[in-house]
């Protein structure tokens, strides 16, 4: 059987072109293996081989994102590969983001198996761990010998359509999907061992991270609020009178986006709430009680804020996170960012 074709993505450093001083280089395609690719080819054995390597400087990638994405995608596509491997990026932040970005893009565009690898604290890990499989590596290039076989093995598994095991078995960074497997010790023994480590102040790994407590770092404060464009988002279910999009009163399967251009006050005649979780009388009388359009317009005219964004977004989510509210929040957050919104006021009932 012919070997599966692999394209490998590297930055300038791992391609042995140079360090930070060469981080500006544009994407380039080389046939065959470069640098760490050798370790991958060894690990792939008879089953697959790296046919080409795409190299891009980390600064170039992050500063010319759209251009770099398009070029790298084109180069990868030109090789018609079966598998795409990016990195490993270890603790290199921009490299990690580039690996994650390309792996996700290629998975979606070319519909082939992709694998990356990086240190769990690499910012790229948090950003892309749910989108693509990412092998958990050490924090420096000394982990290459360990990482390459794991990445190769998972890539082959994906390429052959085999069932991927749990993160503990296949060594990827936990991605939120729970997979069963058989441990070596029974649960009670694992509990005793975990307790002994905890008592001894030694590191231990919980088998079930409490899900609600994953945190996002706060973004920097707005430097000049008088120039900022501010958008309103609410989980209070405020919609134009008559609920034109039929937003459901609970466990909403969609969200609303509504134009408030020229509106200085919401009234009983103009807006109401679609939320089913609380007494709607007060919000129906005056929806400013849930989304403060009147006051923010006032601030806008007084120059206290730069401007109020033309649209507000609404859901009837009930405060706690459900998978769907998360999904559409991701969608409209990207929209807000593209519309140049500087800050969001989110109101919940």
């Amino acid at each position, binding site marked *: 059987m012919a070997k599966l074709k692999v394209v490998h993505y590297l930055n300038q450093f791992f391609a042995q072109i140079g360090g930070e001083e060469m981080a500006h280089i544009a994407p380039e395609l080389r046939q065959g293996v470069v640098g760490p690719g050798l370790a991958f080819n060894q690990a792939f054995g008879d089953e697959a081989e790296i046919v080409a390597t795409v190299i891009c400087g980390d600064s170039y990638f992050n500063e010319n994102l759209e251009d770099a994405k398009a070029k790298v995608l084109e180069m990868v596509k030109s090789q018609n590969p079966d598998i795409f491997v990016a990195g490993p990026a270890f603790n290199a932040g921009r490299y990690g983001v580039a690996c994650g970005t390309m792996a996700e893009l290629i998975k979606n565009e070319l519909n082939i198996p992709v694998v990356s690898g990086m240190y769990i604290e690499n910012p790229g890990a948090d950003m892309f761990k749910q989108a693509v499989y990412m092998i958990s590596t050490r924090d420096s290039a000394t982990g290459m010998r360990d990482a390459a076989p794991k990445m190769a093995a998972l890539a082959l598994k994906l390429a052959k359509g085999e069932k991927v095991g749990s993160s503990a078995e296949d060594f990827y960074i936990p991605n939120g999907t729970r997979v069963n497997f058989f441990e070596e010790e029974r649960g009670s023994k694992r509990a005793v061992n975990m307790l002994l480590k905890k008592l001894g102040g030694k590191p231990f790994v919980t088998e079930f991270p409490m899900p609600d407590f994953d945190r996002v770092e706060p973004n920097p404060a707005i430097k000049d609020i008088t120039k900022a464009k501010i958008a309103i988002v609410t989980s209070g279910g405020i919609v134009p009178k008559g609920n034109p999009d039929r937003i459901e009163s609970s466990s909403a399967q969609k969200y609303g986006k509504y134009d408030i251009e020229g509106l200085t006050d919401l009234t009983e005649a103009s807006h109401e709430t679609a939320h089913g*979780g609380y007494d709607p009388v007060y919000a129906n009388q005056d929806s400013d009680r849930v989304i403060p359009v009147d006051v923010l317009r006032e601030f806008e005219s007084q120059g206290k804020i730069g401007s109020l964004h033309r649209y507000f977004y609404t859901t009837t989510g009930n405060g706690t996170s459900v998978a769907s509210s998360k999904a559409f929040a991701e969608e409209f957050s990207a929209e807000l960012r593209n519309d140049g919104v500087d800050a969001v006021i989110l109101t919940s009932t």
Partner: protein
Amino acid sequence: MLCITNNKLVLDEYKNTLNIEYYDIPLKDILIKTRDKIHEHYKLLTHPLSGSIKPGETPYKTIFIEKGNKLDMDSVILIENCINMCNNFEIIDKSKYLNPEKSIQDFEIIDLSLAKSALSSIH
């Protein structure tokens, strides 16, 4: 104290002694009803997912709540988590029970017994 239930047996047993709101609605909707009450400052007295019978399996649910003067945050969080949990289970169509009459009766009795067990603590 207010009892929210979709179990006729609970209604029959306690209609003369307890304050009961009976609704002929699915289990998850009983939880949602309860959530709405919590937003009117009721506090949960019993666990919304009482009983280890899975939400998709038994159609019956009885929950006890009590009116307070402010929003009880523990209740809000618990009821929301429980409503979310319901989504993880396939809802079994009552008519698909092997012996529908007997099964339904069993579920009614078990739900009543869980309610009784809670009431014996409350009183």
